[in-house]
């Protein structure tokens, strides 16, 4: 359980809130690069951390992320004309550049300096990998760009998707460090998903449904090790890294690409789940990439032209009770992503954590909440830079290994959990 005041502290990310200020210390995904595919392409509404923004790519290829609403009368710049190195409000023709600076007010006299005094709130928008990242904090404290491995391997080795999740970011994120649900909720996927099936590790997963856990601090967040019995005298370990505030990786399976998520608050009742797959040492095969596009693995099949999953709360997630009876899916919902999302959304927009009954196996979640709370308060009260801002903290990996029973996963996997360019991930 969590006290109500702490639940509110962790789930509220709007401007001026402690968690909102914490998120504003980091570069976070704002949108996929594919959403602004070319110069002067249509602007895109972006809501992040409870702020309404508009993203556009100007005639010179520069990205901008600015206040959605025109400074004049408050019309949405989503209707704007993206032309001539700026975004023009179609109502009265006011025009803004990618920094939010107003560069033209047609109703003013020629050579008027009026527009120099009009500037919309703007945030930097930078392409790293498949994602356009933004930093919404104090410009003077802007950290170096993110160095997560999935965003830095060659283009042919990585794939990123996103989906709208209709709940607070924290309950979505907590699923990312909760290894104990895999054996139940995703058991069907281990047998059939083209991006999961066939790995030796899956057998350990299915044979031992009561994993043991070890939770350890890392410089950027946590490592959560889930341990299951393997062959005589050995354990199968699945190691999940979390880098604050919202980056998690799923331990790999066999030579399948390795995957993970970035959980980004839209507002307090919605979040974006960015899902990535990459292989550190080889291009994705055509079959793997197609499987990702088709919504397998950690990805979702979205309604064309949107980032809303086809299976969503408005159609009961297309639940199939017969498939559940046949054992094809455990919950009746198809796909790893929507199996998670359906249950997390079912908790309500912001789950009341005062009513939880946690068990020791939830220690990773308990510890993560504690770290988030402490970091938010240390930032608020003392200005302490939180873990995960330093880009060295980004260079982590998940791992799946078999170790002798006496060995500590932390000691034995120091290299395995470091992102080393070109070196395959440690996987079983």
């Amino acid at each position: 359980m969590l006290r109500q005041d702490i639940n509110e502290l962790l789930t509220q990310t709007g401007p001026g809130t402690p968690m909102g200020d914490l998120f504003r210390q980091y570069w976070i995904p704002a949108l996929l690069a594919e959403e602004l595919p070319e110069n002067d392409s249509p602007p895109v509404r972006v809501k992040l951390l409870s702020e309404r923004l508009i993203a556009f790519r100007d005639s010179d290829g520069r990205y901008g992320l600015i206040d959605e609403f025109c400074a004049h009368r408050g019309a949405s710049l989503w209707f704007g004309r993206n032309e001539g190195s700026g975004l023009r409000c179609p109502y009265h023709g006011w025009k803004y550049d990618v920094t939010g600076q107003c560069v033209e007010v047609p109703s003013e006299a020629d050579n008027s300096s009026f527009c120099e005094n009009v500037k919309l709130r703007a945030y930097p928008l930078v392409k790293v990998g498949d994602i356009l990242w933004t930093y919404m904090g104090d410009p003077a404290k802007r950290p170096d760009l993110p160095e997560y491995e999935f965003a830095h391997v060659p283009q042919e080795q990585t794939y990123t998707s996103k989906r709208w999740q209709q709940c607070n970011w924290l309950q979505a994120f907590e699923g990312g460090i909760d290894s104990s649900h895999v054996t139940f909720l995703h058991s069907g996927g281990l047998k059939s998903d083209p991006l999961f099936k066939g790995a030796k590790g899956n057998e350990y997963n299915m044979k031992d449904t009561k994993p043991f856990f070890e939770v350890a601090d890392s410089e950027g967040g946590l490592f959560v090790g889930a341990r299951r019995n393997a062959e005589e005298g050995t354990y199968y370990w699945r190691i999940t890294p979390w880098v604050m505030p919202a980056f998690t990786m799923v331990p790999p399976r066999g030579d399948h690409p390795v995957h993970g998520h970035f959980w980004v608050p839209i507002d307090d009742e919605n979040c974006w789940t960015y899902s990535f797959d990459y292989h550190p040492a080889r291009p994705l095969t055509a079959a793997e990439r197609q499987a990702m596009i088709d919504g397998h693995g950690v990805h979702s099949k979205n309604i064309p032209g949107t980032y809303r999953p086809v299976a969503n709360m408005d159609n009961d997630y297309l639940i199939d009770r017969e498939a559940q009876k046949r054992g094809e899916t455990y919950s009746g919902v198809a796909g790893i992503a929507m199996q998670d999302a359906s249950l997390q959304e079912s908790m309500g927009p912001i789950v009341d954590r005062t009513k939880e009954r946690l068990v020791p196996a939830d220690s990773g979640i308990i510890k993560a909440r504690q770290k988030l709370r402490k970091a938010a308060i240390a930032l608020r009260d003392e200005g302490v830079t939180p873990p995960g801002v330093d880009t060295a903290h980004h260079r982590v990996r998940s791992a799946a290994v078999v170790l002798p029973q006496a060995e500590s996963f932390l000691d034995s996997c120091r290299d395995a959990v470091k992102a080393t360019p070109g070196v395959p991930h440690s996987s079983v």
Partner: protein
Amino acid sequence: MATLPMYASESARAASASESRYRITVPIAPARNARVIALDARSAAVARRISDGPWANARFYTCEATRGRRRADEVLLHGIDGVPAALDDMLRGTDVVVVIATDDSGGALAAAIGSACSARAITTAGVVLGDGFEADDAVAALRPHARVLLLSADESDAFELLRALRV
């Protein structure tokens, strides 16, 4: 025959904030009968500090450091108030034991306690405070038995774990 209301999606309605108001609200009685055992001198100090918390059924114990293997019936505990207690008696009626360690001096005790808990189907959790290296033996001794090992530099994690478990 009455017609039941039909909705396009029960999930969308059921997951709404307005529907959250209708969730049953009853006081949640503490379901855990927890015992917290400090394995060494520094962890005993931690246990004493957190024993003042708002616990319902949690009881706190220390045990004397010892070397070499110990059988469960050789483990002697003391309550925070100094009253001796045999491990066997202490475990009666318990459903979760949280062991706290800061160094290796309690490694042998950890093995005996973990083994005794396993034999009684008592969930065991270990909180190892410090940088982890000072308590390698304790971690190794606890590993076969503890459902969870929390390795942390933050003493307050022990308190937070107990609070989250509603002990």
